[in-house]
């Protein structure tokens, strides 16, 4: 018992007082600083994108504050507590997902919101955390690599809620859920053979989805992505205008608040999903590179936390959370720059909007919990 305490002090003495306090507060220095930097960049881009609306800045700042508070609170939980609650959180999320199909509120043509009286809630957001938690829990005390039966079990566990989300229909979130579930499986040591067979099976599945499982507007998005010129006034307009915004930014950008594309209203959704184009137009390639580096630092730190984690559960969960975070960044920037089809996924901590922000910050709370509750026994 004593031995556990002494090295902690020993290590703490070697590092600065500030870091020691952070550690006692269960906060991870690198993550915290990077996230704060991102939040600051986000607010300044939003200031420009919203035509200098202080209202929106205050709104977003409050959401960020809420996000950081949620992160802080979750970081105080021990990984064991998180593990204990994983299946229950999933069951709760699943029930709400089913409920939303029957009694959900409809916004923008899709049924995603559950009205809980005081506030509305998107159960699919809860699922983004509950799903990787459940799968990690499911593998936590088993022998790895997982047996075939376990893999099938896990696949069912994450495909059923994903399907429910796709029904709403919310393709973007369904994709994120699939990815987060898959990441756990992958990190748990899913055999390459199984992965290859899965990819081969995906092709006929996509064919079936395309013909029977998709809404017209979803099909249209894919067609528009493949050839934006087919719909220059509708969805293609987004991509055309955002590539013009990014491209015209050049190496050094047009300067803060100087983005003409953004300010002449050419750029749709410029405060939410397409905010990266505003950033890129105003800060150029140099700024974009710095932003990507910042994201890379966060993801790098996340991966480190995963490798240093001490139990199967924490390893798998940390790995999946950080890879899912990467997927957000990659899909959003890929979509805005015309590499990927337009799916409604926000740029973490930069896009205006609250729901997914809180989910992401809660995810970082889990990462910090995993990173700061390590028992300092060297192996």
């Amino acid at each position, binding site marked *: 018992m004593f031995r556990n305490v002494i090295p902690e002090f020993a290590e703490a003495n070697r590092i600065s007082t500030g870091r020691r306090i952070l550690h006692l507060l269960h906060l991870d220095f690198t993550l915290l600083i990077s996230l704060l930097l991102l939040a600051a960049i986000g607010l300044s881009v939003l200031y420009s994108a919203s035509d200098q609306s202080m209202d929106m800045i205050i709104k977003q700042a409050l959401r960020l504050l809420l996000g950081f508070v949620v992160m802080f609170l979750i970081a105080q939980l021990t990984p064991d507590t998180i593990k204990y609650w994983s299946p229950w959180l999933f069951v709760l999320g699943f029930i709400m997902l089913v409920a939303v199909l029957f009694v959900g509120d409809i916004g923008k043509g899709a049924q995603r919101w559950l009205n809980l009286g005081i506030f509305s809630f998107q159960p699919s957001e809860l699922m983004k955390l509950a799903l990787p938690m459940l799968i990690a829990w499911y593998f936590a005390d088993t022998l790895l690599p997982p047996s075939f039966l376990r893999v099938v079990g896990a696949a069912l566990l994450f495909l059923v809620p994903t399907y429910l989300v796709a029904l709403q229909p919310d393709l973007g979130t369904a994709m994120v859920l699939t990815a987060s579930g898959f990441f756990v499986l992958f990190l748990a040591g899913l055999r390459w053979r199984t992965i290859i067979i899965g990819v081969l099976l995906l092709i006929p599945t996509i064919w079936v989805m395309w013909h029977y499982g998709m809404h017209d507007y979803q099909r249209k998005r894919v067609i528009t992505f493949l050839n934006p010129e087919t719909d220059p006034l509708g969805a293609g307009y987004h991509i055309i205008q955002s590539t*013009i915004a990014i*491209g*015209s930014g*050049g190496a050094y950008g047009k300067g803060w608040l100087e983005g003409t594309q953004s300010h002449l209203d050419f750029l749709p959704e410029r405060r939410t999903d397409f905010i990266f184009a505003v950033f890129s137009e105003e800060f150029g*390639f140099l700024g974009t590179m710095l932003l990507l580096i910042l994201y890379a630092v966060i993801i*790098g730190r996340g991966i480190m936390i995963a490798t240093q984690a001490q139990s199967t559960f924490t390893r798998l969960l940390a790995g999946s959370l950080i890879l899912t975070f990467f997927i957000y960044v990659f899909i959003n920037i890929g979509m805005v720059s015309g590499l990927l089809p337009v799916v409604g996924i926000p740029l973490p901590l930069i896009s205006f909007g609250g729901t997914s922000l809180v989910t992401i910050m809660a995810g970082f709370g889990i990462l910090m919990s995993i990173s700061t509750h390590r028992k300092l026994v060297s192996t």
Partner: protein
Amino acid sequence: MVQFSRLTLKDHLRETHLFNQRVVFAAAVVILLFIALLARIFYLQVIQHDHYSTLSEDNRFTLLPLPPTRGLIYDRNGILLAQNLPTFTLELIPAKLSNLKETIATLETMVNITAEDKRRFYKLVKKRRRFEGIPLRFRLTDEEVAKLAVNQYRLPGIEINAELTRQYPHGALASHAIGYVARISEDDLQKLDTTRYAATRYIGKVGVEKAYEEILHGEVGYQEVEINAQGREVNVRQGTLPIPGKNIYLSLDLNVQRVAEQSFKDYSGALVAIDPSDGAILALVSLPTFDPNLFVNGIDTDTYKELNESPTQPLFNRALQGRYPPGSTIKPFIGLNALDYNTITPEKSINCPGYYSLKNDERHYRDWRKEGHGHTNLLKAITESCDVYFYDVALNLNIDKMHQFLGQFGFGKQTGVDLRDEATGLLPSREWKQRTQHQPWYPGETLITGIGQGYWLTTPLQLANATAAMSMKGHRWQPHILQASHAVGQDEPEDFTPVTLPDVNIKSPDNWELIINAMHNVTRDAHGTARSIGLNAPYEIAGKTGTAQVYGLKEGEKYDAKKVSKHLRDHALFIGFAPVQEPRIAVAVIAENGGGGGATAAPIARKVMDAFFEDQHEEAE
């Protein structure tokens, strides 16, 4: 124990190793994808910078949508029913204005701008792009146009645009069939393909305008417009022209429709005339009507309130949605039913003392003629509309057989007409009553079902289509109002292909003749209930009168309930077709509170038939 822990320890190491392998792989993929993103951004921002710079900085080009011209609507003889007329609209372009509020204040001194105009305008300002014109006032008067034109030099960013506005030259005539367009509402926007409607300002709301929105609308075009940094258009490049909507021809005969509407005089009600040989709707009347032109540019609240709250419900399409008991018009169908199920023979006659009673039921089910009809067979029962005969027929058939057989004529089902919001009506059954009222079916209810009262509800369209089926000896068509559509640039209009419905199958086809002959007798026989319309008719008419008891309504529409307190007079009904051999028109008439079917409804049908055959005659010449 020791062995066990060693085993797990070993697995632990293996697991960690496996995990680390996977993490390294994932990290490699992450790095690769990051490089891909950077490469893409580098390509856009550094390599293609000049290209995008040109697009963005020097000449921002944009696409302005161009609205297609809405297709015109004609009747079957080519009479124009809906057209597009140019009207002048005052539009403001926010990008060209330094101060919106000030400009509007200046404009208010020249033209009349209501608070509603402003509210709508500011709502649109938030949604549209800044260089797009946003309408502030529609339908400017000539005087207003002149005032604005004189002052335009000092009002940059103000445009007076000629816009095509829908207009219905015949006003209230056939308005329930044609329907109307109105400005696209928030609700519409939720459901619309916003690209296709990018420039469109009107959308079909009711009637044919709504049902055929798809082909009337056309395809949006667009123009590439170059604008400079201040948002001014500097150059219009070539774009794609919009494709106008198709012109459509209705099967409606406006002349017949007019005669029909006029023949109702002051009665509310409905009339549907159908060509039995293909289901084409020749007239679709619902009275009272309204002027569709009121709705095109937004109806003012008071007028709308007045129309909407009027006890006569002028906005309610009775022909499609009105639900009326069929009354005695159902008797030929029930007669056919009984013949087909062999529960009667044509010769069988019963004595009608003026009432009918059931065992264990003290009630007297009365005939409309107090003194009775005496010995009555099927022919006489239909000709004179004997209730007692049909009480007996219904009782012997029972409700199940009636439900089964009459369903074949389309009662209790939508006809599938190419117009929206058709009511289903109600063909009662034992099962239906149990399900909705949790009560068993009583024999007394079978009796009154036999004379088309009780729970029965039919729409005028259903009744007309059933009559058409009777006239064609069981051959049925889906009623339709579209005759042809004509795309601009096409040489010939494209004819609508009528759709058949399942035939009414009966065991002995001779029974059709028996019933049709009886219906012929209704207008031909000296005792026929509609003999007045058979007199001097240059063609033979088969028909059946009916009277529906208003106070007996149990499941009426709201408007019925209101009326009951005011008017307790019965609804007058008539169904009929002509000529008896090779029928060309089938009609169903309902005159609300019209009293007797023979006196009120039948003459309306006769006038409609006269008008129809007169038109046909002229056409032939």
